[in-house]
């Protein structure tokens, strides 16, 4: 008998916090609000830790059913939580990074209006995210999926009086809705063909099926539709456009929702559905191609951005692309590994960027920064760790996870690998560009801000000149820096003398349901052959090759560093010259390849015009409104005519009665004589 873990406590605790702060927070002092938010998210983290420590003694996977939710015919969906290695990793990331960002937010948001509202939303987000990762079926997962979208919308539009923030919130919500549509259709297909949405039941029904090689079938359709959902949530081409705009939200939100946790929900969902994807090579290929394109595409845009948060946003899109490459080549555990390390270093980078913005009084343009190295040393050093981690410099976390993905990508296709490698170079370049621009050379901002009289801006506390953030913000930075430094060590590959414990840990999830494919099929596709690689212990002969590839990716990172050093430290005038010599190409990249404009012209404007002309004017106004208006008008006219009968004259009433009676009698006589 398995012990009752009370997993339901994990999502419920932040919900209680959200409810308390949301309902009573207005009357609370800031200390109370922060105390409530921190204690409930902290309690959730402690509960997850307790589960983690008892994990080895549990029968995994562990399912905890609370109640039946929907029962309709043979279909049943439960309020049930599912714990296995994958959800444990996600739980730890969400609650751990979430708690750190809660702590940071206390400092960052202290002087902002709507303090209680912010923490209520943040806790609400935690509730939905934990529901998403703990759900035992797709339907409950979908609740969390929609819920995090809602929380994301609320938090992007946190400064709702600002038009751009409100618009960004709407954009995020609507673009996500497109993805959700695909996700929903996939769910309908699952119900129709497998009669269940439960992960285990679906896996059991799908497992005996053979891969749909050389064509498309049901599983391919489901996989592709799930990928549409994942692309919406995880900001992949073509639905990535909302994420850069989402930077309108407060920076801790960007860190928590739009870097560390929510945007990785798509990766989690694809990994959770690996049984389906493994049997749909076409869908997997699409996943890998979308991932590759997104990684490269976003990285090139990131190179030209000047807003510190926008650089990080495009970097997030690009890194999510990496995770999808990993999923696409069947290396799900590598995807989750990168998801975890990315949560650490991107969370760190966003928080550090927030700290920089805080320090210079709300300025986000890197061209107005510079020379902050000595002024905000804690931020500088933690951000340095984050930058080196994302660039893939060993032995920091990003190196191991990215290297793992590149190696697995190489085994699948050299194109993925080459593109990934080039993206790694770009990543290293734009991150070090950010690093040099922000922290080195001379301060380029307005002298006023430096002297401590900055003009009014988004943040209320720019009156003290450039200053280090309070300890409550620095401590999460340091913790995340340590994690970004060491987080990769749990997945050291065999080639570097490790044993890739992370891969082995997650392997239980990704291999237990993998069917014993017959050898021909294994040899048939590159995807399945990569799959075979996971099954067998890595051969010793591969280590040398793998080591060479590690070397190449480190070299790419160093080249990126060198380029950034050359352009933004050695010869600060060169970037301008290069930009002007590239002309139109540069302009295109600066304007994000005009994708937003393209969508506006191709989709949004025709849609709005069509809605206005056909749906609003044509159907709503001319049909629905007109029907109602005309019937009301008709009733009015008829009553207007009839009301003259009520003259008040008794004898005319009597006349009407007599006439009516005469009519009735005449009718009856006529009926009788018939």
């Amino acid at each position: 008998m398995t012990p009752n873990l009370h997993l339901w406590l994990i999502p419920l605790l932040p919900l209680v916090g959200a409810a308390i702060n949301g309902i009573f927070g207005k009357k609370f002092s800031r200390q109370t609000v922060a105390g409530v938010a921190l204690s409930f998210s902290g309690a959730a983290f402690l509960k997850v830790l307790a589960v983690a420590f008892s994990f080895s003694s549990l029968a995994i996977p562990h399912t905890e059913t609370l109640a039946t939710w929907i029962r309709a015919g043979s279909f049943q969906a439960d309020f049930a939580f599912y714990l296995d290695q994958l959800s444990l990793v996600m739980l730890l990331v969400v609650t751990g990074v979430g708690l750190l960002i809660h702590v940071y937010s206390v400092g960052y948001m202290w002087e902002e209006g709507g303090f209680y509202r912010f923490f209520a939303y943040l806790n609400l987000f935690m509730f939905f995210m934990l529901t998403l990762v703990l759900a035992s079926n797709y339907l409950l997962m979908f609740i969390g999926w929609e819920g995090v979208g809602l929380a994301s919308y609320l938090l992007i539009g946190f400064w709702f009086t600002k038009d751009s923030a409100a618009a960004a919130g709407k954009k995020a919500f609507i673009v996500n809705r497109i993805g959700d549509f695909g996700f929903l259709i996939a769910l309908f297909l699952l119900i129709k063909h497998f009669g269940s949405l439960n992960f285990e039941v679906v896996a059991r029904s799908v497992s005996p099926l053979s891969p749909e090689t050389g064509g498309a079938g049901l599983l391919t359709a489901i996989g592709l539709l799930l990928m549409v959902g994942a692309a919406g949530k995880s900001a992949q081409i073509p639905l990535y456009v909302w994420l850069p705009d989402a930077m309108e939200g407060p920076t801790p939100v960007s860190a928590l929702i739009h870097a560390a946790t929510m945007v990785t929900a798509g990766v989690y969902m694809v990994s959770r559905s690996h049984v389906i994807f493994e049997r749909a090579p076409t869908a997997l290929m699409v996943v890998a191609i979308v991932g590759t394109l997104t990684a490269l595409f976003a990285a090139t845009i990131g190179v030209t951005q000047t807003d510190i948060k926008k650089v990080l946003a495009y970097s997030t899109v690009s890194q999510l692309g990496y995770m999808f490459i990993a999923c696409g080549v069947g290396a799900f555990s590598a995807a989750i590994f990168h998801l975890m390390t990315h949560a650490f270093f991107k969370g760190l980078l966003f928080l550090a960027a927030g700290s920089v913005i805080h320090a210079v009084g709300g300025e986000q343009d890197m061209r107005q920064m510079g020379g902050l190295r000595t002024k905000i040393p804690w931020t500088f050093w933690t951000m340095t760790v984050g930058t080196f981690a994302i660039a893939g410099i060993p032995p920091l976390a990003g190196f191991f996870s990215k290297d793992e993905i590149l190696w697995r990508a190489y085994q699948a296709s050299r194109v993925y690998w080459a593109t990934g490698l080039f993206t790694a170079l770009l990543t290293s370049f734009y991150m070090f560009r950010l690093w040099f621009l922000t922290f080195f050379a001379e301060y380029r901002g307005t002298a006023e801000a430096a002297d401590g009289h900055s003009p009014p801006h988004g943040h209320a506390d720019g009156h003290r000149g450039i200053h280090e953030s309070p300890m409550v913000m620095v401590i999460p930075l340091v913790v995340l820096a340590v994690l970004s430094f060491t987080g990769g060590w749990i997945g050291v590959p065999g080639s570097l003398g490790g044993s890739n414990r992370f891969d082995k840990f997650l392997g239980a999830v990704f291999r237990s349901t993998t069917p014993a494919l017959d050898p021909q099929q294994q040899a048939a596709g590159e995807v399945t052959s990569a799959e075979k690689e996971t099954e067998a212990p890595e051969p010793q002969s591969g280590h040398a090759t793998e080591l060479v590839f590690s070397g190449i990716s480190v070299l790419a990172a160093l080249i990126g560093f060198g380029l950034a050093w050359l352009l933004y430290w050695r010869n600060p005038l060169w970037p301008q010259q290069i930009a002007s010599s590239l002309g139109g190409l540069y302009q295109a990249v600066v304007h994000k390849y005009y994708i937003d404009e393209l969508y506006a012209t191709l989709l949004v404007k025709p849609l709005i015009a069509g809605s206005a002309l056909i749906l609003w004017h044509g159907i709503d106004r001319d049909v629905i409104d007109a029907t109602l208006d005309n019937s009301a008008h008709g009733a009015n006219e008829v009553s207007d005519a009839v009301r003259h009968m009520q003259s008040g004259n008794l004898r005319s009433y009597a006349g009407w009665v007599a006439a009516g009676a005469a009519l009735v009698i005449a009718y009856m006589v006529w009926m009788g004589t018939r």
Partner: protein
Amino acid sequence: MVPISYYLILSGILFACGVTGFLIKRNIISIFMSIELMLNGVNLSFVAFAAQWHALSGQVFVFFVMVVAAAEAAVGLAIIISVYRTRETLNVDQVDLLKL
């Protein structure tokens, strides 16, 4: 025995007189009397049928009608007095305030 059709014709004549009086008279008291005429026209046909079919229910019904008519007369006359006191007229064409 007088055939029932005679009674019915008399009853119809009485009822028609009542209706006509109701419609053409302007004095409230005349209208009131016309109503009594209509009621009694109907009463006559009741008792005629009762005698014809040897059924008592027709007779009983007439008593009910009389009771109702008596009650109605009491209430109606009270209303007429009240109307006369406030409006100083018994002409129904001038008592027409209850309208849209």
